[in-house]
């Protein structure tokens, strides 16, 4: 009976000498372990806007909005930080070497206004030259043509977008005709318009 009490007493004295186990948190900032899965953050330079992350997200915390005005067509990638569960599926699915969106060590995510709990990045969008709808992000088309090399010359959308980006193409040539026929085939087109121009008999 005495022995257990002595044992517990030693532990109590030890605890008294070593001080509290808990950290002095608000005074002493907490640094998460490097392996910690914190809030995912977009890398606007590496992200190609392919929407793979939106597709795999189990809680629909990633969304996008395509703004198709001809002045500045862009795709806004939205990450809702309040819904996110930090599972890392987006990072695992990212086609840009898993670096377009990456989990960070950020864990202090308190906010006052829930509607402001989001992060956005903007990617330049390539528009269809017939219907004006979105084709894909410019960076995504470049990513594809870099992967497939010279094969990209089989797709006008791919090589024209690339050449336009390099500034080697005259804008006036593209604007020449608009008859949804054979002459429209060598243009930057969305999937639906590509099908129409290919199948039409005009």
């Amino acid at each position, binding site marked *: 009976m005495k022995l*257990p009490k002595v044992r517990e007493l030693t532990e109590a004295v030890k605890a008294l000498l070593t001080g509290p186990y808990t950290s002095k948190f608000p005074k002493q900032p907490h640094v998460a*372990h490097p*392996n*910690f899965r914190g809030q995912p953050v977009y890398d606007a330079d590496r992200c190609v806007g392919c929407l793979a992350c939106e597709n795999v997200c*189990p809680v629909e915390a990633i969304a996008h909005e395509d703004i198709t005005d001809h002045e500045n067509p862009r795709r806004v990638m939205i990450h809702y930080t309040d819904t996110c569960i930090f599972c890392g599926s987006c990072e695992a699915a990212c086609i840009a070497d898993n670096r377009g969106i990456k989990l960070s060590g950020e864990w202090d995510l308190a906010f006052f206004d829930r509607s402001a709990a989001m992060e956005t990045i903007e990617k330049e969008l390539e528009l269809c030259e017939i219907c004006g709808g979105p084709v894909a992000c410019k960076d995504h088309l470049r990513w594809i043509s870099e992967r497939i090399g010279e094969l990209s010359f089989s797709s006008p959308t791919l090589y024209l977008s690339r050449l336009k980006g390099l500034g080697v193409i005259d804008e006036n040539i593209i604007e020449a005709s608009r008859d949804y026929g054979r002459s429209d085939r060598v243009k930057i087109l969305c999937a639906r318009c590509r099908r129409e121009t290919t199948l039409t008999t005009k």
Partner: protein
Amino acid sequence: MARSVIPIGPYHPLQEEPEFFTLTVDGETVVDIEVNLGYNHRGIEKLSERKTFDQSTFVIERICGICSTSHPFAYTRAVEDVIPVEVPERAKYIRTIIAEGERIHSHLLWLGLAGHFLGYNTVYMWVWKLREEILDVMEILSGNRNNYAMFKPGGVRRDIKEEDIPVVMRKIDSIIPTIDRLKKAILDDPVLHVRLKGIGVLTKEEAINYCAVGPTSRASGVARDVRKDAPYGAYDRVEWDMIVTEHGDVFDKAVVRILETYESIKIVKTCLQNLPGGDIDLNIKDIPPGEGIGAHEAPRGEVFHYVRSDGTNRPARHKVRAPSYMNIPTCQATVIGETISDATIILAAVDPCYCCTERMAVRDSKGARLYDTKELIRLSQQKTERIKRKMGIK
């Protein structure tokens, strides 16, 4: 004396199965107990059918906050059973490490809460301090203290880095002396012997009849453990013992959990030492039509999942049976005949997440509220004090 009816429940938001106990008491003695299950329906199974096979693991992980790996483990095994396919060796080991780490922290959590309800708040604080170390280990291995997001059909999502293994081993080794001390402090304590021995006895026969699972049945002498009976993961590749005791009282349930913590530590260490190389994921693309079942020995007992696929990328049907569903009804055999002050610890001995006491309320036959959570815990703690006084300790 007139009989009173004591309702306990019904909302227990953090538990797999919210429950509602109606105790009928004669003075201090419980003469009847009625259990109602099925409150707080969250529609998890339906939600799982809306997500793809891969996304479902995250929903299933959130069925329970404590055993957040047990459900995905059973679910991924069920999906792999549909195909059927064997996961790579390294993935098996990583799965085992995560599952056993979870068992350690779950058992420690129970031990701390049991201490709290008995009035041993020092045990409560010590054990939870110890549990922090394990949660740190889990954060190093998986990236989070809980909700590890490691499992996916066909393997695991993240690899264990070589440079993390020595750190983890050191941390696990550092907690063993503390658990030793704790084990002795609890098992030597004469007050706890009087307080817990012979309380809430579940006999072997009753355990079989109620289909009790996990530590609840093993404490009653029923040697049942999915990890031994139908080995999966790396459980047949490492040496470990199944802990079985005979008496079935609250004390034995505590003993089983403490000793199982040692076995889990042993499994985690052996797996980390013998971690084989190779792939961690099969990259399953298609899941053919079919049915599959998966079982896993969760800290509270066998968890069972059924998945039916119709060839699309979403499960057509997903059924979950959690262990507490089998264990909670055993209180009909254990609580009757005991006092209200013991009911708290007997219901806790089954290891439902004990936030349920927050909704515990005692009413007399006229419906006036007599006791609330604090009152019930106080009753339980007072009994320990009485025993201590009787034994001349205080």
